[in-house]
């Protein structure tokens, strides 16, 4: 039973899901021209898309078929990929190259959901 639990835990951990990724603008040296925010939680998707594809893995019909073919011939076709399926925008206040203050909304900056595609 302990072995099965460990196995399940490892399997769940490895499945496709959203992970934390805080982008700190000072880390990339952009804090001199980006006024706000100082950084933002962007997230990223990572993990396996194992057979069988569970509902929470947010897979497409194509991903299910690709997983099936992969199970038959792993060398011919890779598994489905764990990718962002839903993204949201953020607002940024920054100084442009003319020293003008600009407020802009950028779409698709934050991962809201991941899935097997």
């Amino acid at each position, binding site marked *: 039973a302990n072995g099965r639990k460990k196995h399940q835990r490892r399997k769940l951990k490895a499945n496709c899901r959203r992970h934390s990724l805080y982008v700190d603008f000072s880390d990339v040296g952009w804090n001199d021209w980006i006024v706000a925010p100082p950084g933002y939680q962007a997230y990223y998707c990572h993990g396996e898309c194992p057979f069988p594809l569970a509902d929470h893995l947010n897979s497409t019909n194509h991903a299910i078929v690709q997983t099936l073919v992969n199970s038959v011939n792993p060398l011919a076709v890779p598994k489905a990929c764990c990718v962002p399926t839903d993204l949201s925008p953020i607002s940024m206040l920054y100084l442009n190259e003319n020293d003008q203050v600009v407020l*802009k909304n*950028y*779409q698709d900056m934050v991962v809201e959901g991941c899935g097997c595609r």
Partner: protein
Amino acid sequence: GRADLIPDAGRRNLAKQAAAYSPDKIDKNDDMIRAFESSLLNMFGLNERPRPRKNLVIPPYMLELYHSQTKDPENPSVNFNFAGKSTSTANTVRSFHHEEESEAGQPVWEGDEINRRLWFNTSAVPSVELIKAAELRLFREQIDVDHVQYGDSTDHHLYRVNVYEVMRPNSRTNTDTITRLLDTKLVDVRNSSWESFDVRSAVTKWKNSPERNYGLEVEVVSPKRGALSNHHVRLRRSADMDDHAWQHRRPLLLTYTDDGKGSSNSNRVASRQKR
């Protein structure tokens, strides 16, 4: 001269990655990094890495707009949703201060009326962006009108502020200047406040024909000439005002534009909000 939007450590790692993918094209790695940097700049709508001057003052109103836009992180929107503003599908706000060099030689006060020209260099608005709204914001300091005698007048605290587009200037005499009224407001001088004027039609014209940008003219009309100073509308820096205070009170032009990158996502955002 290098854009260096990517830090040196990142540049080295990217070069290694590129080499792993195409070891036979090591000499082209720099090109690949430059292409990546170019896509980053394009994403931000920049031509080069900004190198801002030190001690630049951020207009408090821009910070206010930022906080207003980010107050509900659970429901982020690609387009701006500012209360009381019709910005349509705009997703970019740019702020402009007027060129103070162009003030030289202008008539300052004409009797007791303010008639002042403000010129804004709006050429930085990219041609691909559509102007959805534009406003001129003027700061007005409160004045004590209770001690001023106006006879039987009951509305002596109301001043009219007119904003015109200069259609044809005459810098020498100011007599042949042709102007077009863009917006007008009756303001109560008993309270300090910012006043907003709709100048979209003029800014749209300047974007399409920059050579026809002759600026805006602001006129303040008192209810009774000579009764009260009109200097409460902050159109120019006073001699005793320090730079910091001036930066917080000087006229500000705002453009609300749509760069065309937000509309395709609106359905997805609406769907998420519904869910």
